[in-house]
């Protein structure tokens, strides 16, 4: 299986680089052990799990402040308007929704499984 396609970071996103252990049931990205949501029993990545559970009681995890909380906070923070910088080498269209600011790259470098250069990437 390929490397994990999830991105680490908060202010600036970067490639995870860990070997993938499974595929997310929601977005189909390859995910490593770190990026698999434990609460989903490793069936979803933390990004998808955080988004799916945003409406859940935010105080439920209050005081824990673990990686799941951070992922959930990241999802809300980006949705509120923060466009993170992407500093990795392989891009996935999953992050288009965050209007990621990135290095200018050639279309051939985009590894999103399609030939389209998506909006929101490389437009800074």
């Amino acid at each position: 299986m390929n490397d994990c396609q999830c991105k680490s970071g908060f202010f600036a996103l970067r490639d995870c680089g860990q070997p993938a252990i499974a595929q997310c049931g929601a977005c189909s990205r390859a995910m490593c052990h770190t990026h698999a949501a434990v609460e989903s029993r490793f069936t979803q990545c933390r990004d998808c799990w955080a988004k799916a559970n945003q409406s859940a009681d935010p105080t439920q995890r209050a005081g824990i402040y673990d990686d799941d909380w951070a992922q959930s906070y990241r999802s809300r923070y980006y949705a509120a308007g923060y466009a993170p910088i992407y500093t990795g080498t392989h891009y996935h269209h999953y992050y288009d929704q965050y209007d990621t600011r990135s290095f200018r790259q050639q279309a051939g470098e985009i590894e999103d499984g399609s030939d389209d250069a998506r909006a929101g990437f490389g437009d800074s």
Partner: protein
Amino acid sequence: MFGALRVLGQLSPAQRTMLMQKRFVGEFTPEALLDQMRALATFDRHGDAVRKKAGGWAVAAFLQVVIGAIAALFFGRWLLLYSLVMALVGVVLVVVWYRLRLMDISNNLGEVALPFLAILKQDMLPDQTLAVDIDLSSPTLARKRQEVSPAYKRGAYTKIVDTNYADPWFSGSARLADATVLRWRVVDRIIMSKRTKRNTRGKYKMSTRHAKRSLVTVAVALPRKSYAIAAPERPAQAKVAVAAGAKSNTLRLVRKIKSKSLDPLSPDVLINLVSDAYRRAVPVARNAA
């Protein structure tokens, strides 16, 4: 009560020392730091809850002592035994309350520093370290006192004495995964105003009010080989200064937050300052010839 004792028993000697000294200083990997902080914050949460209950129960126990003693006058001396038991219970509860009060730490740890560092961890590599210095003692300790005003009158208040405190409780630095160096510092300036006034029945009433101004400073040194600095997309809520260096551009952001209570600052203030710096960063073209 047993929950707090169980959590206390799980703390390492180093963590107990931090609780007693009320200072969290050192250089840690993000995971090690967060593990230690979570343990202390969990104990503090349990301790606060038990302390509130123990205080109330102690008052109730001492009331029972008095009630038992009065009842003994009418219904027999055996009720003195009840009073004695209640007195013992009351003393135990006071000791528990006092011991927990000695180990009480500022809620700034669990409500500001912990969430901020949990976010910062996301931008760090597992083997990178960050240095922190967190003062967990009360902001109104005598050693933090800066100035006491002479007593003065204002409006209905016959005597007002203002005491100023300075509490530089949170500072640290970290190198992030993208080679950015981040430094931060939070200083709370507190005015405790003790006010006395005379009510319509001629009685003197005292009240204490607090005003807090938090000065939050963040310096973000963005490496020039990765980032250039651009004008912001939207005006920042903070004062911003940019210093160009040979290897990095440093953005210094300062924000003042005013509050009329001693409640902890929102961690969003720190997170927003760092993100305001990153909003001004423009990634440098990697493939530039």
